[in-house]
């Protein structure tokens, strides 16, 4: 059996306890092992990508138990893509955390970081709904620790809210899983797909309840209105590299919606008919609106980045709710873009906050390395707002194109275009306040003149720059990326391949 599939889960799972037990007091060793481990994760993800890109679906049976009795890990194009995206993002964020010194401001950053990666990788690779819950919990509990890293009363209270909100989400997840199990008798995703399709009509009400509860849970994770209220406070008060890593966490919610709703509750299923089109689509449009208006209204750069993340989730979910293969291809392209852009915005926000001392969007002294940070902010803002020439523009164009035949296309187009303008205004206002206005000679001269003449650490700039390079690569290689995204979407909308690969027709 192909053991590469479990490697992204096992490697961080082994590395994290090793870091805690052996290198507890040696930060340099922790850094070395953590970075080496994350580089290894990138390599493993590239191997997985090469295996999955051809279109074959690889199944890994844990303990050699056949599905649906045992838990399976499934590698298809979407899982491989998300694993690669996570590994690359994790490496970049780790470099920023090490370079800016965030990892020494509290205890156990690297161990928690590796546990978080274990949870995210497991969530992307699993083929069992309860196993998805378990990996959700692993990634959540690690994120609680990362969220309150380096402490402080505001961060701790924001962390407490984040934890409580997510515990409620986990409880709801269990209710949903209990309902689904009670109706179908299985929790393996492929087996669920088979049993849901042949369910008698008198049980369909309970199944619809389970499907709705599951959608709600994933919407909590993906920060869809009205379940988005946890995100601004949590992401703006988290340590900045942690907030950048959290950019992939909302994508775990989006991935789960895609996985469950293409595989199990497919577009032709009568039981869940209308859930995505009638309910998720308007919610996604409103999420986009809330995100962009929030960008315009934020007084703090952390909250600005958080609302921008909400806005990009709105656009992503608009593409997902259109529920056609073309729209799903656009959604996958946009998902990659939105992760890189949101992470870059959070890292740039950290560069500003570190030098300014607070996170207010207000006129103050000129930052050291002002030009470099300003250009990084400029490109991050262009990417986030969806302006040419970066991949945000291409992504939004693809989403608009894919939804031109959708039922609510007037609202979708109006929403995306108007809210893009709102976001552009918000980002431009923040940028000019932070970077241009300090050139006014009437403002006070920079403080701490002796300290900032020492060389600022270069690694955070390298990290932010590599995210920019990723966005540029996504733009330049948009053709191959879109072909891959379309192939992924085609594979998603043909669930029979997945089901027969997992259940090995006839040998249940």
């Amino acid at each position, binding site marked *: 059996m192909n053991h590469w599939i479990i490697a992204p889960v096992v490697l961080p799972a082994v590395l994290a306890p090793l870091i805690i037990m052996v290198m507890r007091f040696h930060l340099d060793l922790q850094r070395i092992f953590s970075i080496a481990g994350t580089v290894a994760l990138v390599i493993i993800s590239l191997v997985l990508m090469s295996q999955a890109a051809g279109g074959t679906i690889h199944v890994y049976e844990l303990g050699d138990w056949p599905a649906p009795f045992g838990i399976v890990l499934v590698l298809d194009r979407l899982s491989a893509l998300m694993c690669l995206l996570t590994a690359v993002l994790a490496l970049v964020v780790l470099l920023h955390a090490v370079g800016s010194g965030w990892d020494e*401001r509290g205890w156990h950053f690297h161990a928690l970081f590796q546990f978080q990666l274990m949870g995210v990788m497991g969530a992307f690779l699993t083929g069992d709904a*309860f196993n998805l819950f*378990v990996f959700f*919990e692993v990634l959540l*509990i690690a994120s*609680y*620790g990362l969220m*309150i890293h*380096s*402490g*402080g*009363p*505001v*961060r*701790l*209270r*924001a*962390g*407490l*809210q984040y*934890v*409580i909100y997510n*515990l*409620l989400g*986990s*409880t709801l997840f*269990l*209710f949903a*899983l*209990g*309902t689904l*199990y*009670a109706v179908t008798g299985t*929790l393996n995703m492929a087996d669920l797909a088979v049993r849901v399709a042949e369910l008698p009509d008198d049980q369909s009400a309970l199944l619809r309840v389970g499907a709705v509860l599951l959608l709600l849970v994933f919407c909590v994770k993906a920060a869809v209105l009205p379940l988005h209220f946890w995100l*601004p*406070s949590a992401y703006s008060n988290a340590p900045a590299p942690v907030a950048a890593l959290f950019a992939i966490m909302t994508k775990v919610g989006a991935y789960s919606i895609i996985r469950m709703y293409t595989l199990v509750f497919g577009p032709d299923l009568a039981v869940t008919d209308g859930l995505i089109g009638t309910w998720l689509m308007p919610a996604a449009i409103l999420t986009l609106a809330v995100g962009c208006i929030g960008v315009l*209204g*934020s*007084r*703090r750069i952390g*909250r600005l980045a958080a609302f921008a993340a909400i806005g990009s989730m709105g656009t992503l979910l608009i593409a997902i709710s259109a529920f056609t293969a073309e729209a799903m291809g656009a959604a996958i392209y946009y998902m990659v873009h939105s992760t890189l852009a949101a992470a870059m915005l959070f890292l740039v926000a950290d560069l500003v*906050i570190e030098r300014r*001392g*607070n*996170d*207010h*969007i*207000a006129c103050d002294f000129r930052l050291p390395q002002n030009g470099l940070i300003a250009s990084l902010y400029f490109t991050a803002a262009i990417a986030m707002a969806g302006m040419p020439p970066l991949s945000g523009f291409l992504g939004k164009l693809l989403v608009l194109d894919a939804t031109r035949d959708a039922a609510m296309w007037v609202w979708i187009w109006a929403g995306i275009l108007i809210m893009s303008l709102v976001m552009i205004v918000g980002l431009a206002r923040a940028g000019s306040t932070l970077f241009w206005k300090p050139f006014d000679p009437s403002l006070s001269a920079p403080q701490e003149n002796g300290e900032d003449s020492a060389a600022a650490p270069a690694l955070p700039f390298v990290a932010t720059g590599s995210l920019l390079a990723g966005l540029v690569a996504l733009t330049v290689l948009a053709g191959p990326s879109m072909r891959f995204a379309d192939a992924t979407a085609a594979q998603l909308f043909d669930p029979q391949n997945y089901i027969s690969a997992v259940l090995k027709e006839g040998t249940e």
Partner: protein
Amino acid sequence: MIELELLFASAVGVLTAAGIYLVLQQRTFPVILGLSFLSYAVNVFLFASGRLVQNEPPILTKYAESYTDPLPQALVLTAIVISFGMTAVVVMIALSAWLSARDDRVDMENEDPPAEEDSDAEAQS
């Protein structure tokens, strides 16, 4: 005589209602109690998803004629262990938040204040 299903359903309902009421309180300790009530409710619910039967064991024995579904019971064990860990984490975070801020409110104060009347700028690092 009370039906088993009625007893179970009302237990889940009452526990969930109590849990949600407590979770909406403004101080951390009732919230944590509310989360515990909700986890009791969801564990009972998960247990019931394997159908309510009497005198049927979940694991193989010599003396049983039929068996109940063991999988929900395994799911409940997993869920109990996970929520035990989570409760420990949330208690620790609530305790740290109280020790830091000398206040056990759940609500964030003024999240987005204007720059002039800032009260917690130094909490950023």
